[in-house]
């Protein structure tokens, strides 16, 4: 019955470090351990599953206003809802879904309030897309920085809700309308002005996330979802949309979320998230061993689909095309992989995304040259590097500022 065992000797010869000595006897303890799970009944079915006691992924709370997704611990493209990044300006409010309504008014034919029950009964749309805080990148990160610490303010879910165009069809919209204000029911009453064109394109009022009710931190009972647009515009705990002929110039789109340029101007409404990518493995704090490994990461763009990700395993001298895991969706985290055999010499890993608009993820230098150093707190989508030291340590390698 031990067919194939004849091959073992050969394996031992060629791979001495890994081979168990086939003459060696297993200890009784080891035998017990190898059979333990087959000797006693496991736990019964339950109403709600729990993670394995051996796994404890965690968001990383930051300054009491945000928490980052553990990108280095995740696989595929979906972020579990309880690990979705948070960014809020006045904490997570508690809203009773039977009371909370969405008011649409302003330059409409009929101002209306919609209940969650209304929304759930209306035509639904589902899409997978990322949300990312446009402040997502820790500018001052040192080398002992994980992807989560570096740029954990992006996550991806399958969202379900009602197209905003469907709701605006109910209220009607006046011919001169061009913008709308989206306002939350949190204690910041957070508000952003959104061009009506986006609202009629792919905006959604999302009440579900990864199949279930949207989580409190993501806007329960519903939020505005603007695929590809900076996180702050995806107003959570949405209570009100006011249609208007002009923007409202709220604090979030003037004092914050504007990008000072080197031309001594400041850019308003830089709402689309430009293409970016990050290698998620190998990265700090993992320690690499020699031989074959798979370089993995995520790439995404608010302009549409990712069409190419280039990876360099030599600090940017040569670039190779990574494989993209399909289906590649528009405005969605896209998993890329590149096989790599590490020979044990120190080097640097880089990734560079290209989207369907032709946009190529820039270096930090290019961003500084085109926009200016002072613009970097937002939309810092530069190429990121990971230094692999000859001892296998992997460290974040920030591009020099100067």
């Amino acid at each position, binding site marked *: 019955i031990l067919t194939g065992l004849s091959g073992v000797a050969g394996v031992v010869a060629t791979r001495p470090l890994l081979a168990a000595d086939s003459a060696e006897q297993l200890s009784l303890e080891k035998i017990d351990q190898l059979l333990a799970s087959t000797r006693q009944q496991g736990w019964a079915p339950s109403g709600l599953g729990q993670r394995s006691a051996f796994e404890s992924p965690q968001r990383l709370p930051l300054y009491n206003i945000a928490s980052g997704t553990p990108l280095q611990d995740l696989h595929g493209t979906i972020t579990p809802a309880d690990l979705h990044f948070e960014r809020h300006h*006045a904490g997570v409010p508690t809203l009773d879904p039977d009371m909370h309504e969405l*008011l*649409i*008014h302003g330059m409409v034919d*009929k*101002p*209306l*309030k*919609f*209940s969650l029950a*209304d929304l759930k009964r*209306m035509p639904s749309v589902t899409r997978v897309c990322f949300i990312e805080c446009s402040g997502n990148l820790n500018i001052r990160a040192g080398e002992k920085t994980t992807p989560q610490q570096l740029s954990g303010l992006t996550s991806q879910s399958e969202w379900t809700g009602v197209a905003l*165009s*469907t709701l*605006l*069809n*109910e*209220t*009607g*919209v006046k*011919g001169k309308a*061009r913008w709308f*204000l989206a*306002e939350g029911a949190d*204690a*910041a*009453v*957070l*508000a952003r002005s959104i*061009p*009506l*064109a986006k609202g*009629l394109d792919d905006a959604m009022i999302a009440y579900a996330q990864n199949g279930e009710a949207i989580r409190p931190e993501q806007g329960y009972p519903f939020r505005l979802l603007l695929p590809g647009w900076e996180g702050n515009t995806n107003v959570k705990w949405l*209570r*009100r949309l*006011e249609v*208007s002929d*002009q*923007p*409202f*110039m*709220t*604090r979030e789109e*003037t*004092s914050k979320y504007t990008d*000072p340029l*080197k031309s*001594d*101007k*400041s*850019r*308003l*409404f*830089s*709402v689309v998230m430009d293409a970016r990518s990050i290698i998620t493995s190998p990265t700090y704090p993992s320690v690499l061993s020699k031989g074959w490994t798979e370089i993995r990461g995520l790439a995404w763009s608010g302009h549409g689909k990712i069409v190419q990700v280039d990876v360099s395993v030599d600090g940017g001298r040569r670039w190779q095309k990574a494989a993209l895991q399909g289906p590649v969706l528009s405005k969605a985290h896209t998993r890329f992989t590149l096989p790599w055999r590490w020979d044990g010499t120190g080097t640097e890993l880089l990734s560079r995304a290209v989207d369907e608009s032709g946009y190529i993820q820039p270096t930090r230098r290019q961003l500084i040259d085109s*926009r200016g*150093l*002072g*613009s*970097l707190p937002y939309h810092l989508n530069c190429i990121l590097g990971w230094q692999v030291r000859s001892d296998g340590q992997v460290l974040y390698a920030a591009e020099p500022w100067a």
Partner: protein
Amino acid sequence: MVSPLSKAERLGFGRAVSAQEIQLWDIDVRPDGAGLPKGNGSVAEGKVLYLQQCLSCHGDRGLGGVNEPLAGRIAGDAFPFGRDPGLKKTIGNYWPYATTVFDYIRRAMPFSQPGTLSDDEVYSLVAYLLHLNDIIDPDQHIGADNLAAIRMPSRHRFVVDDRIPIDYRHPEGG
């Protein structure tokens, strides 16, 4: 932009709302002054309120607090933010519209008791902050009649992102 909405049949969802229901939530203030409530305030009254309710977080005269600095100008109204990442943005050196100060304070401040200020109190706090930023004189009143007309020092520095098509009508006001 041609609205695609006219073509679709209405489904009949949503309920009609009363004017009062709208008013209760309709707190935004636009650069053209739309949304400004009746009322007015003074720098002096604003200073008293500030000392009581804002100083603990934003510091003396809007500076040096644990939270955002609220005051400060750059000599000659220069705007080197794009070159100098160390510069602190304030109402005086950065904010393009004075209406935003009213809108934001009424929405969100004081941080732990938002929504508790009367409209007159907000006008007074706006007056005090505009004064701290050398935008108005200490004796100037601020109210529904004149806030939108305040011209902010950096107003002309702001440009709309032209890399994507946004059908943008420039907001009126200061």
